[in-house]
């Protein structure tokens, strides 16, 4: 029952009241809201079946999350085990999140735009080059060495050069993110295309397929599972490049916010930005998973990853 979570957290409420400054009222409210909602759910689930089903799977996760918050609070605010300016209590983090919400929101928005611009650009370019390299022997001959030489260099290594070449740090950051995405997606696309089962191509040819049908209706669909592996790898690389580019060159975004807040030794803000970053990246990752599930419905029940 959610009561387990609620109990853990009532204890925690007690600890917290003694230890933290009164200004962190919001955290109390937050915990109180959580407590009330969990009690409501605990009561409500006996009456509404639908609610019980909806809550059933999430319950252990929420319980664990609250207990974790509780532990964090005990360690920081309660017993002062960790040096203070670097490890603020959850109450302080929540407080900075709320007080600086306008700038945080703005930073998230800038990161989102930059990330999407770079990712979409890189993925599209990679799709085209991957299909060419995977399908045509001459494209493979010329493209593969290029891919093998440039690809393994981390996109972030180009930062000094990119900053000099381009007038705008944002544009060069987008280009770097695109480059970071381009390598894995090209690699996986071309290998997916060139590993298309020969018998699918043979069947299509006996059905009267021309070259265009073979590429767009056989090789590309057959390569899609592999292309998605590339897209996921590219997404990871794009997160990394985004954060690094924002902390060294671009003057906006979550990466910039983290290093800026750190410069002022406002660790509450650092943690706040990190939490938002985690939520932001994992949301984007989840969206890509959803997209994959839609595009690869035909694989449902065949492959799990």
């Amino acid at each position, binding site marked *: 029952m959610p009561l387990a979570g609620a109990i853990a957290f009532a204890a925690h409420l007690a600890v917290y009241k003694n230890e933290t400054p009164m200004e962190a009222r919001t955290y109390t409210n937050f915990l109180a809201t959580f407590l009330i909602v969990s009690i409501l759910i605990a009561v409500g689930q006996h009456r509404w079946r639908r609610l019980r089903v909806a809550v059933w799977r999430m319950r252990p996760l929420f319980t664990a999350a609250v207990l974790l918050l509780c532990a964090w609070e005990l360690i920081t605010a309660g017993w002062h085990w960790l040096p203070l300016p670097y490890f603020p209590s959850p109450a302080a983090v929540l407080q900075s999140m709320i007080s600086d919400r306008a700038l945080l929101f703005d930073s998230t928005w800038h990161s989102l735009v930059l990330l999407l611009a770079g990712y979409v650009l890189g993925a599209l370019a990679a799709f085209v080059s991957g299909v060419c390299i995977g399908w045509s022997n001459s494209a493979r001959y010329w493209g593969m060495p290029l891919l093998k030489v440039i690809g393994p260099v981390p996109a972030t290594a180009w930062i000094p050069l990119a900053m000099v070449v381009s007038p705008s740090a944002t544009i060069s950051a987008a280009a770097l993110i695109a480059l970071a995405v381009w390598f894995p997606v090209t690699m996986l696309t071309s290998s997916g295309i060139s590993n298309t*089962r020969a*018998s*699918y191509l*043979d*069947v*299509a*040819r*006996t*059905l*009267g*397929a*021309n070259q265009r*049908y073979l590429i767009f*209706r*056989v090789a590309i*669909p*057959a390569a*899609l599972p592999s292309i998605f592996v590339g897209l996921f790898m590219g997404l990871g690389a794009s997160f990394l490049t985004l954060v690094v580019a924002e902390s060294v060159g671009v003057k906006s975004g979550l990466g910039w916010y983290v290093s800026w807040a750190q410069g002022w030794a406002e660790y509450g803000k650092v943690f706040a930005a990190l939490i938002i970053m985690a939520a932001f990246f994992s949301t984007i990752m989840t969206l890509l998973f959803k997209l994959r599930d839609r595009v690869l*419905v*035909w*694989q*449902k*029940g*065949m492959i799990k990853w």
Partner: protein
Amino acid sequence: MVTTNIAVGSALRVHEVHKSFAVPDAPGTTRLALDGISFSIAAGELVSLVGPSGCGKSTLLRLIAGLDFPDAGELLVGEEKILGPSAARGLVFQDPNLFPWLTVRRNIEAGLVARGVLEAQRHEVSDFMRLVGLEAFANSYPHHLSGGMSQRVALARALINHPKVLLLDEPLGALDAFTRMRMQDEVLRLWENRRTTMLLVTHDIDEAIYMSDRILVMTPAPGRVDRKIDIDLLRPRDRTSEPFLRLRSQILEHLHFAGTAADVSA
């Protein structure tokens, strides 16, 4: 209905065809797979090709399909030389090779899409789905289908192009005995309705006798047509009739399974 839409097949002529392959583990050397194969099949005939595995049956079918080219010799459909794959020559493999990313209906439509005639001939898709009894599975993906169902989809997919020649490479080899016998009747029904010229590769002597007008027996590597046996039995054929069993033991004897043949004819 498809059945009224009678398409007459084309004659097929294979003349002195040679084909060899590079041996992968010994670079520079080649192995002869087909050594001067010759035969012809009349329009609308159903002919079986039997022979031990590795004798070049699949190689021959790929040459007729136009997926590969002979080193020497000629392959003709009607009066025309085979220069490449064509929708007029359908090929069904032992593995149905359905496109896993397409539903059953879209798999069957594939040939129409490939030839750019989907709009004009869309009405036939349902006919073909009914013909092979798969209307209920129109929107299923291939990995939900059983082996027999998949092979029926593969047949429908090949037939929707109204091929003049249908090449079948052990199409029923992977099916269990009951499904196989039912599918044999189904293929026969399709053939009787449409009079497509069919060349059926099979391991199963009973299947060859049950279905075909003529059986070509191939020798092991390098492949040659060794014997042509006419099957004059009336259809539908009885697998346990005395002439059926006599033919069976004759062919088995020819393939050097004399012991088994003696048991059966006894």
